[in-house]
């Protein structure tokens, strides 16, 4: 079981990293989006490994479908012929970006592993708690969905409600901004 998990994890992780890199380094924007979809899908695989089945499903629905469609639409709206020339910026910041990404990574690993000393599978910095028996039972039967649903409607009811207002705002904002104006009068 463990080996299988490790295998899956390795596979997914490899795919995630490669496709994420592909999403960034592809010259063609559509290729990028396709690459991104692969990333999203692999991430949902990771979620499944992490006992987050609901999350995995949501990931596929929102990311791999919803967002991707949005992206493709916007690509269709905006892309002109010479957009393929847009690839990577070749400016000082490109170099710095690698420095930033690299140093941030090292910093993160440095801290996660407690100054490179704690390469245990579960570093001491983080809380590790075995789930209750009842939870394991629940998980086996229904996955995490009941837990999440309960949480959303009790503990996190306020954010959940506020999220609706947020979405209202975003809808109005996005609509107003993306809407085509009929009159061509100049503003300001």
């Amino acid at each position, binding site marked *: 079981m463990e080996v299988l998990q490790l295998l899956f994890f390795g596979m997914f992780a490899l795919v995630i990293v490669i496709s994420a890199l592909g999403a960034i380094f592809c010259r063609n924007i559509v290729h990028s989006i396709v690459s991104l979809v692969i990333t999203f899908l692999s991430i949902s695989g990771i979620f499944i490994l992490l006992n987050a089945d609901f999350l995995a499903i949501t990931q596929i629905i929102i990311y791999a479908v919803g967002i991707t469609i949005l992206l493709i639409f916007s690509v269709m709206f905006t892309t002109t012929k010479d957009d393929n020339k847009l690839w990577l910026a070749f400016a000082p910041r490109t170099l710095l970006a690698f420095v930033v990404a690299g140093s941030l990574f090292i*910093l*993160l690993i*440095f*801290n*996660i592993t*407690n*100054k490179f000393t704690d390469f245990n599978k579960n*570093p*001491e*910095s*983080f*809380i590790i*708690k075995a789930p209750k028996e009842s939870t394991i039972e629940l998980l086996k039967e229904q996955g995490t969905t009941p837990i999440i649903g309960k949480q959303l409607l*009790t*503990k*996190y*009811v*306020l*954010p959940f409600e*506020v*999220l609706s*207002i*947020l979405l*209202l*705002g*975003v809808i*109005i*904002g*996005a*609509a*107003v*901004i993306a809407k085509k*104006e009929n*009159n061509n*009068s*100049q*503003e*300001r």
Partner: protein
Amino acid sequence: MDFLLDIKTAMLPEAILSLTILMCTVLCFMLKQQIQKVIYIISLLGLVISLFSISLLAANKVFTAFYNSFSSDFFSVLMRFLILAGTLLVIVMTKDYSFTFKNRQGEFYLLILIAALGALLLAGSNDLIMIFIALETLSLCSYALSGFLKKDKSSNEAALKYLIFGGAASALMLYGFSFLYGITGLTNLTEIFSYLANNSGGTMLNLTLFTVISGFLFKVAAFPFHSWAPDVYEGAPVPVAAFLSTVSKIAGFAALVKLMGLAFNNIEIISITLGLIALLSITAGNFMALNQMNIKRLMAYSSISQTGFVLIGFALLSYMGISGAVFYLISYLIANLGAWLAIIIFNDQTSKNLISDLNGIAYNNPYFATCFGLCLLSLAGIPVTIGFMAKFYLFHAIVQMGPAYLWLLIFALLNTILSLFYYLKVIKAMFVCGQESINSKLVFNGGVLNTSFIALAVLVVILGILVTPFINIARYSALSVKLPIKQIEIFK
């Protein structure tokens, strides 16, 4: 759980504001576009009512609501009061400006109200998720608001930059949240405090705190996450810029205060880091403001440096410091809104933004110049304005921390010279004469805009003299903040 009781004791203004939002939404789609001015009135009314409802909140102790995901203490009540007052003034500002939004006025007010709601919730949220959602409510509406002049190239550009920068920053913050969650296994702040008070978070906690703080540094436009501010302030509609530089900042600070309590095991590190960031903010803002020609950009840089001053109060991690920061925020709110009002009055009538456009305006419209000058002097910290008192009180708080913080004092003091230079540059432009190049004519009509402008300028001076109540309020509110101090110092 009695949600109604929760709302009554802790979230009355939010509830009223939500109702207003709903009403406005309905009206927005029902009303004809010509009479969308009604929404302006309604949103003002809603804000005023929720402003008054704050006084109904019991502020003498901490009230929590909705499973402790929201808590209302005196500090957050005060911050929410400031947020609402600021939003009110921002909406007042749009009175003559909103014609630029054509038929989208209703949506504009709606977005502002939603953003304000996000800010209010941010000021009171007591849960990581709540913080995140409130913050995103505020941010996303702000992005939309910045790009509200969609035919305007700079407005688009501002919104785009704001979004990209904000997205990255909030991702960084969330990353921090995830580690915080990983360290404690908790999302509720109160629980996290008590967990951290008993357990050390290891090395990871430091990095976590830094990344968490970075999201708020972005919100308050502090170094190093400040560079969006000038571009956005310049490109965004002026009321939005005013909103960003006041309301959104106050909300950011209000949330940042909540996170101060996380620094139990690393008081020194957080204190020094925040101090360093504060100084760098002040310095960066001041240095870049020196050569500005555009008054909106100038105000942006100035607000960066003002942020730094508030952060100094945080960096002290003492009640004195927090009360100094609170008092400073009050003074900043008044003076900065006054300055933005001046800019919008000027912009409404002349559509100009350069400092040189102000040349000689004092002799055309002395009231304008005087009031604007007073606001700028307050920002610079010249007596007898509230800004001077606030700076003095803040510096006093630094010194009360003892000699260990003298470096902070020295650099902050030196920076005030730089800030005086560019504020005086604006004042100089207004009062300079001899070249007879009065570029702009300004009419001063007794509208609500001008009235509130003058009222703010008068307030700047009056509060500069009658400061005691405000200092007391600031101290009282600071006492309600949870700080990682083992021993509670007593205000002398």
